[in-house]
């Protein structure tokens, strides 16, 4: 059984002769119940790939399927299937409507389930979801501005969970956060994965963070996949030169940086 599958996905920006290839024929499989890490630097196309999966960008060719059902395109079936893939964005402040109480933002996620809930049921669900991400449910009526960066990111995670997603895509969700807050969010993801057996595509430029949360890893560069496999194998013995360079570039606590071949 496989959850989210990308097959030969190509994405271009612009048109005519000035068109640029952002994603160049990527195959990637996020297997059910696992966390798949996607690593790459700026311009690698990793975020574009995620946007294709949730319908925020269009693929020029190729398919994205969820349990075999196509989730690209404009058909009603594809749209409905696409709602089962939810994304959490990099900047939580931009991802929350500044004029909407956070409780309502989380409740918005419930739309995706298609269920018609009564007011009390809805409030109970929001309460439970905020509790789930360790945000005080009594603060549901407050605006995003009154929360800290880490709390905001947990609220956006709660909104994504409200949609009852089959796959959660996390796009650089700790990059805008302080390191101490990053740890809290990563631990939350661990918890959710264990408790809800969540399937996740975890995108980051930070190899150490990806390693910490992922079962499998894919390395992208300039729109192409350069290497993929089980996390331990890829990071212990990378085949590709670029993966090796990435690994070498990660500073290690208390060890002098090796800069000779930079």
């Amino acid at each position, binding site marked *: 059984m496989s959850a989210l599958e990308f097959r030969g996905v190509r994405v271009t920006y612009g048109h005519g002769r000035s068109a640029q290839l952002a994603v160049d024929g990527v195959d990637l499989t996020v297997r059910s119940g696992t966390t798949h890490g996607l690593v790459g630097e*700026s311009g690698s196309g990793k975020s574009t790939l995620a946007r294709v999966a949730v319908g925020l960008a269009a693929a020029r060719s190729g398919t994205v399927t969820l349990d075999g059902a196509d989730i690209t395109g404009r058909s009603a079936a594809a749209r409905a299937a696409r709602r089962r893939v939810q994304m959490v964005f990099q900047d939580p402040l931009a*991802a929350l409507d500044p004029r909407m109480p956070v409780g309502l933002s989380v409740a918005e996620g419930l*739309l*995706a389930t298609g269920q018609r809930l009564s007011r009390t049921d809805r409030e109970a669900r929001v309460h439970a979801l905020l509790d789930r991400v360790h945000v005080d449910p009594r603060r549901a009526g407050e605006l995003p501005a009154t929360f800290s960066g880490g709390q905001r990111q947990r609220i956006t995670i709660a909104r994504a969970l409200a949609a009852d997603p089959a796959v959660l895509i996390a796009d650089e969700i700790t990059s805008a956060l302080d390191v101490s807050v990053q740890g809290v969010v990563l631990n939350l993801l661990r918890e959710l994965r264990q408790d809800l057996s969540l399937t996740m595509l975890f995108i980051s430029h930070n*190899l*150490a963070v990806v390693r910490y949360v992922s079962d499998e890893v894919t390395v992208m560069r300039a729109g192409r996949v350069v290497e993929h496999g089980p996390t331990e194998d890829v990071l212990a013995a990378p085949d590709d030169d670029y993966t090796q360079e990435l690994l070498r570039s*990660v*500073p290690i606590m*208390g060890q002098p940086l090796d800069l000779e071949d*930079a």
Partner: protein
Amino acid sequence: MIPTLRRTLRTPQGIAVGIGLLVVALVAVFGELVFGDAATVRTIGERQAPASLAHPFGTDDLGRDLLARVLVATRLSVLLTLGATAMSVAGGVLLGVVAAVLPRTPRRLVAAFIDMLLSFPWLLLALFFSVIWGATATGAMLAVGFAGVPVFARLVNTLAASVASADYVHAARMVGSSPLRTAARHVLPNIVPPLVVNTATHASVTLLSFAALSFLGLGVQAPEYDWGRLLNEGSQRIYLAPMAAIGPGIAIVLTGVVFALLGELLSERRSGGRAGRAQRPAAAPPRQDPPSLDAVVDVAALRIAFRGPGGELVERVHGVDLHVGEGEVVGIVGESGSGKSVTAMAIAGLLGPDALVTSERVAFRGIDMTRAVGAADRRTLGLEQAMIFQDPQSSLNPALSVGLQLREVSETHARTPRRVAARRAVEMLRLVRIPEPERRLRGLPHELSGGMRQRVMIAMGLMGRPRLIVADEPTTALDVTVQRQVLRALRDAQRSTGAAILLISHDIALVSGFCDRVVVMRHGVVVEELDARRLHEARHPYTRGLIACVPDLTTDRSRPLPVLDTADEPALLEETRA
């Protein structure tokens, strides 16, 4: 929301605007009732009287009191203004929304059409429309109203486009929120407030436009009268009775100012208060111990405060001591709000006038950085201190060639001839491994990648004879592979000049790998100083937490990350940064 409104209304400006609006409204409603008679009674004996106590603005050619006429004209002038403003807003919102929801090609066409209309001044549009609808009050209202449509169409279009590309709208789309629901729940609530602000400001413009049209004889026609017409009639008798023209003019300007101030008041409420300037301390506190002469940087009891939004002083650095020796590589590590960057800026003497610095000592090679430096010290600083900032996109001047920016330090401070400086610039670019340095010198910064720009910044610091390079988060905006190249350039620079380095970063692993000594800061205080090779001996719980909470390539994946105890922290610190 409501409390802030109430607070705004209590400011002097708020009170003034409130009173102004109240007066305009009262005169508009009751003006005719009270002054109607005085405005219509013809006193043949007092025709065209100049200003007097009985008639402050004088009388017109039928002997009617002009002050009374100005007051009575308030209603028509304000009503026409409101009518035209309403038309502009309604038409603009309609056109703007249509432009926002159309498919790509027609949307671009509508936007281009709006742009085209905007390239014409409103008066030309209004004149054009008044040809069609004729020189009447309604004709003028239509003309002024239509002339304002493109302004609001553009505004709505821009606002809607910026909201529509926000991540929270993307998130709503992902959960299947219909376009109609998204528009009602997200787009409208976020574009209405700026729209209200602009409506108030635009009402002021409309009032003046109306007066202009009536003044030209293209608006309100006799026997009706608004301020513009009264001004027109008055200006024809300006030799005899200047107040006849100035009176209506005052009414126009005052009402216009009330509307404009209302707009300003509303927009200030949205953007929050203003920052003030911190006062310099009256006298420097006495020095307690002599500065050490072998130190490149010698800081004792440094405190830095900024003016908060409410005008109160907020201290961000609470008494920091720091010492950097010759050629030493020191790193300052801390999270946002730790005060690490402002400390570095204070050492470089580059804090703006809004910062209040008090200290026992901030010295760079014996130069007191807390006061204005003399010409000789300026030269020394220019040649011996180098800075590298976080954002490579904006730390080089986009309008000047790379070569000029490299050369100017040696040309200005060392009087190096241009050709010699250019040769040195090429050498320095080579040192930081920039390919084709000669060609790069002629180019502009935007032709370089982010990593190259940071390396140009390093090369720029090497043009003098640097004793200290301050690098404030120099690689945070860069990819890890590029980070290595920049750090390599920094290390090469350090080795070739023997300069000391002060590296500011949030990444403790990076700092420990690059520096000799690590200074850990938190909430404006140095919590611990450590030898970079002895991080494992850290004693302060914050340092230990900081080291443990970041996953690295050997972290045990089966266990949760240790979490820094943040329970005792005021969330405010993070808020002020966001």
